[in-house]
């Protein structure tokens, strides 16, 4: 009897210990947070990004979580911080995130926030004289070119607009050799729109033999575009390129339609290849051609898009990056063998930074994303155009 009781007690103790260990593994968690504008007039970017991150982390957690250095698994916890597309708030948010146990941040959404925000990070790792914040940031949305060069703690998974528009204008040149002139329209007070017209679209168009016959400027909150459209009508351009966000893109397209301006090709800003443009001006946007790094063209991207919609967001080129970032970070965390303990937070952050820096390519929804030494990415993309109530793939440059 005594032996039986002893064995019973032993078995009970062993099973209790095993259960406790399992429970402890289940309780393990690492925090990856997001930041960006989830309120305000450009809040849709953050809302979609947040939904994409949450959907991706749910998928990872459902598949068992992320493997730590000791072989145990940890769940990923996440939270989204709102910076309202305001630089001061963005900086304050990142400082707050860095003071928690978060290992890495995905964000921000606005280029005008990203630029000063990256400036508070340590410019070069191991520079003892630089007291900047040592915290890895993996950007999904803020798309203005070249920003990762500001700090070695910054990595971006945003598409290369320079490459996209270069290919787009090369393709337009090949498809329409008779077209000669282009007219640009730019939302002058938004960092991304401005940069993309003057530094990307205009240069790419000129490189491929288009003559810029005029430029129209307007501001983000403008409601009257008649002057700008009149000048455009007079120039009779073959191609019109609009570098603006959906509200003013729609305002300008409506004014163009009213003034009977019918360019043979209409090019739009990457950020406008979204549901917003099609909900704002479905008729006028028809035919608008945009390069984008996301389109639901394969099983992976379709499944991801459905998961994001289930989380209340929409999948577009920006939120697709948030999804990809989550998946890339899982791989990096596992490869870097982080410990995921309160004592190892700083060391883990450094391991993640180094892991991201060491990447030369990463899986994306449309194919392989090439990681550049400066922290930027070159992502696969397609050209889409507005057709009916959706965006349809017009051309795949890889084909």
């Amino acid at each position, binding site marked *: 009897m005594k032996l039986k009781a002893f064995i019973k007690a032993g078995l009970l103790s062993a099973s209790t210990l095993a259960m406790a260990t399992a429970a402890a593994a289940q309780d393990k968690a690492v925090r990856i947070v997001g930041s960006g504008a989830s*309120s*305000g*007039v*450009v*809040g*849709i970017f953050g*809302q979609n990004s947040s939904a994409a991150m949450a959907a991706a982390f749910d998928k990872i957690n459902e598949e068992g979580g992320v493997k730590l250095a000791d072989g145990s698994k940890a769940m990923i916890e996440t939270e989204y911080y709102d910076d309202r597309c305001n630089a001061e708030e963005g900086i304050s948010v990142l400082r707050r995130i860095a003071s928690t146990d978060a290992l890495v941040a995905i964000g921000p959404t606005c280029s005008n926030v990203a630029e000063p925000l990256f400036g508070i990070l340590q410019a070069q790792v191991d520079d003892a004289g630089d007291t900047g914040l040592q915290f890895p940031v993996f950007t999904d949305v803020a798309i203005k070119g070249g920003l990762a060069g500001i700090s070695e703690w910054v990595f971006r998974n945003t598409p290369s607009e320079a490459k996209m528009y270069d290919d787009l204008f090369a393709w337009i040149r090949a498809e329409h050799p008779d077209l000669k002139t282009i007219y640009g329209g730019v939302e*002058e007070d938004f960092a991304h729109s401005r940069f993309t017209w003057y530094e990307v679209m205009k240069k790419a168009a000129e490189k491929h033999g288009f003559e810029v016959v005029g430029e129209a*400027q*307007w*501001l*983000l*909150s*403008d*409601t*009257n575009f*008649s*002057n*700008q459209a*009149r000048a455009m009508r*007079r120039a009779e351009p073959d191609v019109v390129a609009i570098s603006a966000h*959906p*509200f003013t893109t*729609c*305002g300008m397209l*409506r004014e163009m*339609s*009213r*003034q009977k301006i019918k360019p043979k090709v209409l090019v739009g800003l990457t950020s406008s290849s979204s*549901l*917003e443009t099609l*909900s*704002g*001006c*479905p008729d006028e946007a028809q035919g608008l051609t945009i390069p984008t790094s996301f389109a639901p063209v394969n099983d992976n991207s379709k499944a991801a898009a459905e998961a994001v919609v289930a989380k209340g967001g929409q999948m577009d080129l920006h939120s697709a990056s948030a999804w990809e970032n989550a998946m890339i970070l899982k791989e990096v965390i596992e490869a870097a063998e982080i410990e995921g303990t309160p004592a190892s937070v700083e060391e883990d952050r450094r391991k993640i930074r180094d892991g991201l820096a060491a990447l030369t390519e990463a899986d994306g929804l449309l194919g392989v994303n090439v990681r550049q030494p400066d922290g930027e990415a070159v992502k696969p993309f397609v050209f889409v155009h507005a057709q009916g109530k959706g965006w349809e793939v017009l051309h795949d440059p890889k084909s």
Partner: protein
Amino acid sequence: MDYFFFIDFLQSLTDGLLFGTTYALIGIGFTLIFGVMRKLNLAYGAAALAGTYIGLAAFLSFDAPPTLVFLLSALGSGVIGILVYYCCFRFTPADYPMASLLASVGMLLFIEEVVIHASHGMPFPYPSVFRDATIELGDIWIRGDLLFVFGICVVAMAVLFWLLYRTPLGLATRAVSQQPRAAALCGIDPTRVNLLTFGITGILGGIAGAMTAAAVGVLSPIIAMGLTVKGLIAVVIGGLGSIPGAIIGGLLVGAAENIFLLLRGVTERDIYVMLLLFLFLVLRPGGLFGSTAGRD
């Protein structure tokens, strides 16, 4: 001066004056509330926007015709105007004008954020009438939809004038505006007059919001701040408290905005509009038609 410049100038002036009527309506709203209560309602533009979204909801939900959409926008804005009165003005101490002013700033931010959350900040198509109609006078094109906006705004102003100068309600409103204490002694209930003023100005704001959205063809929360700022500039130029001043101020702001856009480009346009505001504040603080008479 070449021919094209002359045409562009005339065209800009025409478009600006037509569009300026929406600023005039917003200006009238500010000035009417100020005239009656001697207080500024900074939530006015945001309330106008929120009302416009009520009309939009009808359009998106059951494809309501433009007339009904405009009507619902105006009425919705009127109801929100009354709510703003109760939240920010009715119970705030009369001796502390800053209390209601700051309450209205809070309300502006609150309404704006509610609209953004409800719409996810996305632009939505807003119905317009005569969108493709254009009257061509030589090289000058007059937009049918802007002419409609102009017409509706003029009718709204005419109805307002009738209300103010031909009805007992208008008499009471003017009495409270001029001598609130004496008006109260005569049996006029200032609270009721204030409430009705917020309702009426709300309707005017809703018309302005609807007409702005109809002119652009798209509605977005972005337009709230523009309506507020342009409306305030219009009343400062026209003279705070003067309805004809708000009308002239609104037209002037609309025209100046377009002319400066033509002459100096979009990046400098607002500098000159603000300079105009500054000049009026310094050289003629009472505006063009501002009354210098006080009240009890």
